[in-house]
């Protein structure tokens, strides 16, 4: 090629991949990510195989470790399902964090001040309160979006901070545990307000699995699910078909927030037995990655949640076993996620190099 009018690399859109090919691509992305993560470990002078093994063992080596892994997975899975609902509608809800917190706050109110109720009634009330709390936090941005056309991304993001500082206020103010001398914290829930364990892990995992099936069926087989899909495809088409778009957006965001609220409730009453600033701890953001990687498929979300939970749980073991800094496992997790998302790009686009003969 004598002339250089053609750019070195061009990006071109691919023809669409079928479902099977897409799944294969996701798997390939996972493998490449693990490989690149391995290179990073190598630069630290460690044996990648040994490190990966210790991560894996760290997550599964004992019943206790396994329970720890699942405990990480529960809120992540539940909130990724919530985000799946919103994203299906192309409502970019990045406020799961705040919705989890609000769910936790609403549920904790009953745990702290009405713990005299019968155990199961109390838990049911806490669950419903959690759903209402999270749901309202999801409804607010939906209302403003359909009424005034506000940007939901910024709105939901900002609501996260309001929720977070609300916990701080409660911790240092009205809900402060008088028994804790000096250190501001909210009291530990009494046993009556603690979520029961099933097979050694708090019942949140059962709720999460029920929600997986619920979200799948809801999106695929119900009229409301169909409406969500159509609104996500095109609001104009939805209006043309006689759908009330504002109503659908608000209803769906209430539901999305409510599911996050469930995550908040199970975290408070099943994992922490109290309400603290760390109740969401970034889960609401990681859940976005899970929902995206699983292409809004609830069953795939289970797989990606497990993968991330194993990585997170195992990394903490790995860093102590190899004497690495705490940040190393964060960097490793970051690299792996980045590569997976990067590979995702190639499911839709391909690169064409200068002078390449195109025989595709």
């Amino acid at each position, binding site marked *: *090629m004598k*002339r*250089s*009018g*053609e*750019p070195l690399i061009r990006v071109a859109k691919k*023809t*669409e991949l079928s479902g099977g090919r897409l799944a294969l691509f996701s798997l390939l992305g996972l493998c490449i990510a693990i490989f690149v993560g391995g290179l990073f470990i190598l630069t630290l002078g460690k044996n990648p195989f040994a490190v990966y093994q210790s991560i894996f063992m760290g997550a599964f080596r004992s019943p206790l470790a396994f329970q720890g892994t699942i405990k990480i997975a529960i809120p992540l899975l539940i909130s990724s399902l919530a985000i799946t609902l919103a994203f299906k509608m192309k409502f970019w809800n990045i406020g799961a964090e705040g919705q989890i917190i609000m769910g936790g706050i609403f549920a904790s109110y009953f745990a702290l001040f009405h713990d005299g109720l019968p155990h199961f009634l109390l838990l049911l009330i806490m669950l419903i309160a959690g759903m209402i709390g999270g749901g309202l936090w999801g409804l607010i941005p939906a209302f403003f979006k359909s009424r005034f056309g506000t940007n939901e991304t910024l709105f939901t993001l900002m609501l996260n901070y309001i929720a977070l500082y609300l916990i701080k206020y409660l911790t240092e103010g009205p809900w402060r545990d008088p028994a804790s001398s000096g250190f501001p914290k909210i009291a530990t829930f009494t046993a009556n307000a603690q979520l029961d364990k099933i097979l050694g892990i708090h019942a949140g995992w059962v709720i999460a699995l029920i929600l997986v099936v619920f979200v799948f069926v809801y999106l695929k*087989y*119900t*009229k*409301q*699910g*169909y409406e969500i*899909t*159509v609104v996500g*495809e*095109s609001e*104009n*088409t939805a*209006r*043309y*078909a*006689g*759908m*009330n778009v504002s109503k659908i957006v608000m209803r769906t965001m209430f539901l999305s927030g409510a599911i996050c609220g469930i995550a908040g409730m199970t975290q408070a009453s099943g994992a922490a037995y109290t309400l603290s600033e760390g109740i969401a701890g970034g889960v609401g953001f990681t859940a976005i990655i899970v929902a995206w990687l699983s292409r809004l498929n609830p069953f795939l979300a289970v797989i990606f949640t497990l993968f991330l939970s194993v990585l997170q749980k195992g990394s903490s073991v790995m860093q102590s076993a190899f004497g690495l800094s705490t940040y190393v496992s964060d960097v490793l997790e970051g690299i792996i996620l980045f590569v997976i998302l990067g590979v995702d790009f190639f499911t839709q686009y391909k690169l064409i190099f200068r002078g390449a*003969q*195109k*025989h*595709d």
Partner: protein
Amino acid sequence: MENKRQDIPAIELRGITKRFESVVANHNINLSLKRGEILALLGENGSGKTTLMNILAGIYKPDEGSVMIDGEPVTIHSPEDAIRHGIGMIHQHFKLVDVHTATDNIILGTKDTGFFLKKSRHNKIKELSEQYRLFIDPNKKVYNMSVSEKQTVEILKVLYRGADILILDEPTAVLTPQETQKLFEILRHMRDNGCAIIIITHKLGEVMEISDRVTVLRKGESVATVNTKDTNAKALTELMVGKAVELSIDRPQRKHDGNLLEIHHLTVSDENGVDKLSDVTFELNKGEILGVAGLAGSGQKELCETIAGLIKPRKGAVLYHEENIIGKTPAEIIKIGISMSFIPEDRLGMGLAASLGMTDNMLLKSYNKDKGAFLSRKEARRQAEGLIDKLEIVTPGAETPVRRLSGGNVQKVLLGREIDSNPNMLITAYPVRGLDINSSYTIYDAINKQKEKGVGVLFIGEDLDVMLELCDRIMVLCGGRVTGIVNAEETTKEALGLMMADAVKKGEGEQ
């Protein structure tokens, strides 16, 4: 450019083949174009015209075959490259900066050396204007220009870059018949000045009028090249379609009486308070096809959407069986027994959900008819499969996302669904856009059948020849105003054109 020898073709394509994945868009295409000649490239949608021209414009590269310019083989890598070879493309959708003047647009992107703009640019533009009789006000801003002025700027833009081989992609689609005549005069003049011109079109009348030779493409192959003076419209159609076709459209006698819809003083403003429709009054009768003619953006979209309940008018009434339906939601309009089948202009954005399959798209208006929380897909699947058979829709299956279907098939899905819903009134905008000739006739037949059943049809069209044959009456819209309602049998294309243009001038006068 005058010195170049006339006998060597300006452009010669030999055996051009271009594949996209498994689809062969161009197969072994041969074409040649001399200077001082206008070549029409004729073919149905999907016959590969645009792909071929994009190869010349440097957007695609051919998989096989060679491009020769002035007898020398070349490889065109980019649109910039194409301009260096003297090839300029005028796209159907103008690529101009609205807030800039004509001059600024013309010099945009040129690679003159030096830090400052050269004064000489004004002279050069003036020279070109005079040489080719392309008269524009160089200081007029694009947003103040009419469509044909914008097109003139586009042409000047490529001439300024030194192009003498011009490719025009459906240049008359947005012009009135009168503006088209003006454009043709310019093109003839350019031809006489030694330019080589390719005009892409599917309007046979224009091919016969403007071109010296015609190359016909069919299914990605160049099936014939003929001298225009040795052929006629019928022969060209046969080449294009591959078999003999009947070119006349039926207009069955009206069998129904009575009024279906009355529109009174309808005025619609957009969010900036600009009137998109002003004081529109007309009526639609049972069993009648009322054509709506007008340049793109004359208020057709607003008219359709107001009747369908999607936008609220500022004032006016829409009476359906003497009941005012203004203020009702689309769902209510469907519910009170008006089944208005509205086929929107923007198919995928408004009539269909692109990622869903045909089955789920059939459900769009009927999903809420049954009680209960769950969807029932059985009926819809049957309906989808029925349509695939009846309208010969090409799709891998009823569950394939409609986004992956070709434009013509998307069109059939939409129209099929609307007609299947047994409407009393059918609003359709550009129902044959993107369809091949045979499918177009299938659609005309389907619309005529609706008319015979007593359905009132509002037919928003763009091809005046078709409307004159198909419609009972034609209403002309321009600048949101009704500039005339005429009987189709008693009018001519020129008369319609005048009504379309008349309103354009009024609109300009106001600005």
